[in-house]
């Protein structure tokens, strides 16, 4: 059975499903539609095929042709090794991870209002939050980490409908982005802050904030500091709220594992190692409090020089 061609929002929902970002009823709704709507299914299958082909093309396994018994054996071994390498690569290929602020907020089990309550009421400057003075000429990695933490705060505030808090956070993000010489992205946050200041409901602004966040994530692609900020801050919120389920989610753990591989700065790596140990432990209130402190320390280390 087919229906009307999918529109842009439906295609985005489908793409989110492909990326493994949908859960619960949203995921089930896409599966139901794929099972009954041939048009939707065709777009899905074709998109999957392109992504699979891209991934298959990634590792090169070209083997030079040679002849003779020993050479053939070597060639066969090379091919075998290549196949094994591909198999191992496929086996350990990274599964979907958390990438956007909305992903992190969605992964948090607590209600947005409770989350926003965990934020500092007055949204103080970074120096007050982390007890460290901001260094002049912030390095990109540290700036990105701060950005990540602020993106989480902003999305939590918008999700909770706290317009005034969200407005201050949007202004802060604009300032951070200007410091990082991203005036185009900064102006997008200025615009969001202006809309909130004019009284537009947080719920109406949130989709555009998600778009702006997507631009930031794209703009800082390859900069793990941004993800450290988002991951660490949402972990801190989860641990502070006693949400042990957050840490059991495979995507949360995979994001952390990837970050550990990418972030080698000793100051940060030391905190990540501590978090790793804590993640292997239980989920008592004391352990979660310790985890919250470790996440806080990791973000602070990531966000400073």
């Amino acid at each position, binding site marked *: 059975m087919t229906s009307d*061609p*999918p529109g*842009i*929002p439906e*295609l*985005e*929902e*489908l*793409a*989110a499903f*492909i*990326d*493994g*970002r949908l859960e619960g009823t949203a995921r*089930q709704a896409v*599966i*139901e539609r*794929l*099972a*009954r709507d041939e*048009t939707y*299914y*065709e*777009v*899905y*299958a*074709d*998109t*999957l*095929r*392109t*992504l*699979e*082909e*891209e991934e298959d093309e990634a590792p090169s396994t070209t083997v030079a042709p040679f002849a003779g018994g020993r050479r053939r054996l070597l060639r066969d071994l090379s091919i075998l090794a290549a196949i094994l390498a591909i198999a191992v690569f*496929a086996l350990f*290929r990274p*599964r*979907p991870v958390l*990438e*956007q602020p*909305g992903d992190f907020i969605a992964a948090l089990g607590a209600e947005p209002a409770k989350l926003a309550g965990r934020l500092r009421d007055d949204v103080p400057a970074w120096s007050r939050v982390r007890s460290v003075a901001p260094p002049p000429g912030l390095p990109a990695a540290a700036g990105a980490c701060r950005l990540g933490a602020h993106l989480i705060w902003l999305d939590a505030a918008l999700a909770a409908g706290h317009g005034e808090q969200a407005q201050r956070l949007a202004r802060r993000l604009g300032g951070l982005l200007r410091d990082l010489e991203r*005036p*185009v*992205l900064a*102006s*997008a946050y*200025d*615009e969001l802050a*202006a809309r909130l200041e004019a009284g537009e409901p947080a719920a109406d602004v949130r*989709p555009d904030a*998600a*778009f702006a*966040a*997507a*631009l930031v*994530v*794209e703009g800082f692609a390859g900069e793990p500091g941004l993800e450290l900020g988002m991951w660490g801050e949402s972990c801190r919120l989860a641990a502070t709220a006693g949400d042990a389920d957050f840490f059991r989610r495979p995507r949360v753990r995979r994001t952390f594992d990837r970050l550990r591989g990418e972030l080698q700065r000793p100051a940060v790596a030391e905190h990540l190692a501590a978090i790793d140990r804590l993640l292997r432990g239980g989920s008592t209130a004391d352990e979660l409090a310790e985890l919250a402190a470790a996440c806080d320390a990791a973000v602070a280390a990531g966000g400073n020089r």
Partner: protein
Amino acid sequence: MRPEVDERTAREELFRAHLPQIERVIAAICRRWGWFGDQADDFAQEVKLKLIEDDYAVLRRFRGKSRLKTFLYAVIHNLARDYLVRRHGKWRPSRAARRGGAIAIRLDVLLHRDRRPIEEAIEILRFNLGASESPDELRRLAAELPPHYPRHLEDQEALPEQRAPDDPEEAATAAERRRAAAHAEAALEEALAVFDAEDRLILKLHFGDGFSLAAVARRLGLEQKPLYRRRQRCLERLRRELERRGVGRRQLGELLGEPRVELKVAALRRAEGNSHRGSV
């Protein structure tokens, strides 16, 4: 500079940043559908125009729920589907042809949409379209492409281009075969309807589109190992459901020639293979 102007600039930057990926996916689609030269250029222009028109409306409506790359790929594949319908109407290459790639699709088009004789199709592919396959290879490929029959009996009247066999006996056999296939297909659709949506999706991806179970597991976020047992259970259940509807081995044999239900054909082949009781 006004913020809205900056936002537009940001979208333009985003589009430019993704242009290489956009062009790669356009090229992949053109290869898959066998669009070359002017046709490929035409499609590429259309996609880019759609992405930038109305002040990058497509990007403006993106909400960041997915990776931008995945979103763009879904949008472009959706545009390709529209383009295909405009060019070929409701006629679609079979799933087998789509799995086989550009040459298989072109061959399917020449043989089953344009109704060209096999030798003429081979000549067009080799000399006009530069196919590197030998005539024998193309004949073997053609043999693997199922013929296109209408989905329902009433649709058979609406296919003026479908050439009826000259021999009356052959024509009667062909009509009987189509009726049996339609009956088995209807039973199969009923049988599949009892499965839950995720099982149906798994069957479609695995049997219909040839994705490995590993790929299905990865893409649906499922564990791979239990999926093998799940597939087995689905097939056994499918066989039981068909038996309840009086569809046996003979009807399945008829269905194997029905091209629009290749998913089901492949599933049924497995079901037959897994039957230990001798009859389905």
